[in-house]
């Protein structure tokens, strides 16, 4: 148990430190790399809790896809990040306030510090252990596709609408672009391209 505790504090400390580095790093690419480090250590925390499916999905979705595109955009865009960061101190009180509100809300919901809210699970902190022979992939699947199937579908719809929206907003038709039409190319016959003409001597074509 001691080793587990030590590993937990190691992961948690790295998450917090890299989270701070994300907003304080001078170079935006370094920020994204620290964000990736934070994702990794959060995945480590999930593994410690026995939620290996969530840990792997976190890495595949966030590190493997979202952060790659993030890095891509940060490297490509010529945004003046120093200028963006100038208002950092100005926004600090508002951000801090939001953070404190969220913290208090979490305390209320989780029932810490002796405060309890009606209807909130009394000990949400202690995760319910699934039956020993059920992997958490199966447990999640059984729950998502039965009890929460409508919410699950609704989440899918929201993502679909967001995706179509993003495509519609950024799509522009550029006139005069020459595109490759493979069926045209393959369907081209000798008669379409070659014409034989009999040319009499002494006369031009």
């Amino acid at each position: 148990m001691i080793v587990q505790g030590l590993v937990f504090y190691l992961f948690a400390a790295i998450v917090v430190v890299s989270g701070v580095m994300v907003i304080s790093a001078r170079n935006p690419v370094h920020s994204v790399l620290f964000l990736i480090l934070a994702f990794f250590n959060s995945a480590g925390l999930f593994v410690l809790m026995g939620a290996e499916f969530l840990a792997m999905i976190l890495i595949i979705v966030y590190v493997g896809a979202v952060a790659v595109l993030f890095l891509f955009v940060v490297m490509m865009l010529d945004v003046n990040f120093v200028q963006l960061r100038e208002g950092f101190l100005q926004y600090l009180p508002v951000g801090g306030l939001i953070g404190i509100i969220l913290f208090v809300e979490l305390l209320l919901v989780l029932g810490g510090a002796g405060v309890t809210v009606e209807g909130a699970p009394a000990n949400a902190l202690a995760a319910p252990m699934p039956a020993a022979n059920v992997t958490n992939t199966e447990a999640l699947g059984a729950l998502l596709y039965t009890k929460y199937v409508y919410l699950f579908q609704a989440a899918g719809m929201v993502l679909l609408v967001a995706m179509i929206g993003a495509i519609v907003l950024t799509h522009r038709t550029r006139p005069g672009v020459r595109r490759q039409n493979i069926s045209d190319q393959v369907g081209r016959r000798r008669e379409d391209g070659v014409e034989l003409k009999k040319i009499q001597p002494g006369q031009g074509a």
Partner: protein
Amino acid sequence: MVEFWIDYGFPLLIILLKIIVILVPVLIGVAFATYFDRKIWAAMQMRRGPNVVGPFGLMQPFADGLKLFMKETIIPAGANKGVFLLAPAITFSLAMIGWAVIPFGDGLVLSDINVGILYMFAISSLGVYGIIMGGWASNSKYPFFGALRSAAQMVSYEVSMGFIIVTVLLCVGSLNLSDIVRAQEKIWFAIPLFPMFVMFFISALAETNRPPFDLPEAESELVAGYQIEYSSMAFALFMLGEYANILLLSGLTTILFLGGWLPPFDIAPFNWIPGPIWFLSKLAFLFFVFSWVKATVPRYRYDQLMRLGWKIFLPLSLFWVVLTAGVLVAFDWVP
């Protein structure tokens, strides 16, 4: 203190020993993989290939390694030093940690985790970071182009790869790699899911930046892409990581479609041969196909690469997921 040793110390030592037992053969295998790659490539072009160092040139990879080891690591003046040195290390270590969940035989696996296939998928999708970080940190044009191409390419092919893995998982009912192999005792998935097998192999080519999808390093247009500014051991780590990744994905293809350690027929002369030998020979065969493709297929144009990934592989693999699920439900074959 004694309890601490029994609980943590000795298991840790045993795990370390197991890691060494897996990684040393993998590294030697990677070294010889470069040799076989060059030999196969040479044979297909009617050349001899490496034949000077040692018998049949077998010592060539070690000579290359020694040469790279003795060279100076040059760091460009404008490079972002930390990221520049981190990139090859990441490529190499990612290619190594994937082997932790590969079952070489029945029960012959370092870590038999429940979500083995997701772990492999995560590791292979992280491979892009070494390239994109190296390309960016070099602070030069061609490496940057290579990095951008690589990012777009790997994200594109990962989507269809995910769907192909889902098709296999539908037929297995478990995310554990050993269970996936055991599910193929009756028939290898390469036969009922043949189109998926071919598509997975092509996606593996794209995922490892091998020809005909080697656009990130395309030597005729980008010189060497993200590798230009790298020299000596940093370059060697990139190279080792690349070949280890090829072997890893060959191993994954073997597990998913070619029945892992299982013999083709469970009858007398075939099942005398132990499982790991079957696994390694299938892996070697797939590696041969990798080299074969490299020697015979010309490089794809970039828009063709994107077209293949998004407009052909993605709809086709999605269709096969629905088809497989439908067939499994209709005939009540769901595991």
